[in-house]
């Protein structure tokens, strides 16, 4: 069944976007620009692969991915919140740093410039969904057995609940909109930002962990720009978890469509690649309704 193949493949593709975008929403809602989602994901993927390799357990890998992401998030918070450095540059630098560090330790630990050895993971390893309907069904069922899939599906609603239904969430949003007002009420703006960015690192790290544990290895640069697409989804979804989830789904569906069409040689894949980025630019140009960023986004003080 074509629909099942489509569904299975879209599910596989959307999970990392959902996880990373959840991190993006958290970070940007507390006022810290989330340019380093790509780095968080890559770090999480590496952490997951290394932990899974060392322990032989996929669950340990999951934890390792979250830890890897959190460590990078803490580094970003150190630079952006404690030292109040320019957040755009910090984001770019963190992405570059993660690429370098993962490559360096890839050489050091596994003596390879391209990938780690095979590690334990969740679900079937091959690109099952691309084949016929039965392998698609197997892949789909395999996905259902992958805890990260469930975490990914739940994460954005969870983030929405956190931000709009808990006292911490209210403080967090206040810090992102008007930190001065939050300070007058005794909220420690810096502490809230540290927490927000660390959580963002954890979420995006889990996104990377999903990639590594799904492919059963770490490959140099395996995130391949997904962090930026997640950021695009956050912006296109106007920092609202529900809309961000829909944006992620839309981008994943387009990607699946392109993969399905690839064999039939109709639409050049490069144009489908452009879709998330073009849509984000259109959103920023106001063609998808006014984009209301958190008012204190990017401000250091």
């Amino acid at each position, binding site marked *: 069944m074509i629909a099942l193949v489509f569904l299975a493949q879209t599910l596989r593709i959307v999970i990392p976007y959902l996880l990373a975008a959840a991190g993006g929403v958290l970070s940007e809602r507390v006022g810290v*620009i989330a*340019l380093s989602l790509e780095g968080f994901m890559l770090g999480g993927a590496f952490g997951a692969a290394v932990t899974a390799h060392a322990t032989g357990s996929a669950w340990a890998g999951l934890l390792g991915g979250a830890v890897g992401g959190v460590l990078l998030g803490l580094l970003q918070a*150190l*630079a952006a919140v404690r*030292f*109040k*450095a*320019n*957040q*755009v*540059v*910090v984001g*770019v*630098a*963190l992405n*570059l*740093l993660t*690429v*370098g*560090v993962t*490559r*360096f330790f*890839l*050489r*050091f630990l596994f003596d390879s*410039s391209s990938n780690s050895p095979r590690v334990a993971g969740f679900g079937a390893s091959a690109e099952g969904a691309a084949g016929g309907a039965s392998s698609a069904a197997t892949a789909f069922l395999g996905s259902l057995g992958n805890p990260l899939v469930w975490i990914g599906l739940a994460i954005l609603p969870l983030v929405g609940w956190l931000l709009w239904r808990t006292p911490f969430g209210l403080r967090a949003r206040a810090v992102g909109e008007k930190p001065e007002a939050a300070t007058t009420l005794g909220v420690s703006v810096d502490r809230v930002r540290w927490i927000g960015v660390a959580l963002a690192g954890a979420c995006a790290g889990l996104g990377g962990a999903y990639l590594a544990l799904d492919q059963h290895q770490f490959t140099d640069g395996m995130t391949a*720009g997904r962090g*930026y697409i997640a*950021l*695009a989804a956050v*912006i296109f979804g106007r920092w609202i978890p529900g809309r961000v989830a829909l944006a992620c789904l839309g981008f994943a569906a387009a990607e699946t469509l392109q993969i399905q069409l690839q064999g039939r040689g109709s639409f*050049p894949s*490069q*144009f489908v*690649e*452009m879709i998330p*980025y*073009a849509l*984000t*630019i259109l959103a*920023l*140009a*106001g063609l998808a309704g006014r*984009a209301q*960023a958190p*008012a204190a*986004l*990017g*401000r*250091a003080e």
Partner: protein
Amino acid sequence: MPAPSSPPTDAAAPAARVASAPPAVSESQPGRAASATRGRALLEGLLPPLVALLVALLVGDVLILVFGQSPARVYGLLLEGTWGNAYGFGQVLYKATTLSFTGLAFALAARAGLFNVGGESQLAMGGFAAAVLGLALPTGTPWPVAVPLCIAAAAVGGGAVGAIPGALRARFGASEVIVTIMLNFIVLALLNWIVSAHLHVPETLHTPEMNAGAVGRLSDLLPAFHGSAANAVALVALAAAGAAWWYLFRTRGGYELRAVGLQPDAAEYAGVHVGRTWLRAMALSGAIAGLGGLNYVLGYKHYYEEGFSAGAGFLGIAVALVGRNNPFGVLAAALLFATLSQGGLAVNALVPKQMVEVLQAVVILAMVTAVPEVRRVLARAAGAALRRDGAKPAKVAA
């Protein structure tokens, strides 16, 4: 999206911003306050790069020790492989040329208060435009005709890519940070499609070799540099730096650009059209980045190849940061980063060259945290010194 906080434009601003010493001191001891201000400005300018380099050296030590090597030996080998022999130095010059262009591009936009993160795509488009023009020109076109035309093509190509985020920022207030990042992907995908679908030499990812417009290599002049890619485009980089400096500090357009970067509202009040200035800044920035493509296309391989830029766009940000957004500082910083890049290759047998990638990122992080921290520390020290000297607060008029 609200504008991100201003990029570090400290090289121009320190004197203005630092002269906030309480009036009491200035009135009684004007000379002392003025020299203290200049001293502080100098420290603010020079300390952060030094701190950043120190941090990078420390991290480098750690990474080298992780690999069980001696830092002294590795650093020695690095210097020897770059400035110690002609081939290495030639490669340093070659890499520094591209980095100079991307660094200048970021610095120019930064002076206008804008973040041009799109260096990668502007660089690629510039190189592509030059390669295509070189293909279109008939073989045997004399170089005084072909080369300037290719230079112009590269500038136009990069400038067009840069103008888009500038226009969107001017017209819609769209964050140029995000637009340039998005455009990077779009433009690179577009170029990938054009080349792979229509313009590539079979079995490769590059266009056919240009018919005209190639420039000479340094090794043609000085055989000692044989094998290195250093070429005449380095002269264009020097000229670009000089032109950028002259534009920024000696022309009205540059003055307006800097004014808009320091305080857009004040500039607007003074009659400067802020939106048009932003557009101009981004277009110029993109054009300079586009010129960076000439290094590979005109000077080295004589064709456009997918991925030739190899991260030079992002490294340009680092170069501009360390060079404090000053055209000549950018040249120096470009040499530094190029030395690191080439040095990584030289020490690859001892320590993975990826160490250099880590160090480059560490330099950026250290720089961007050091700049505000140094300013804060110096301001606190200046305040403490004033309190120590018994300065009285100025009388507030009733």
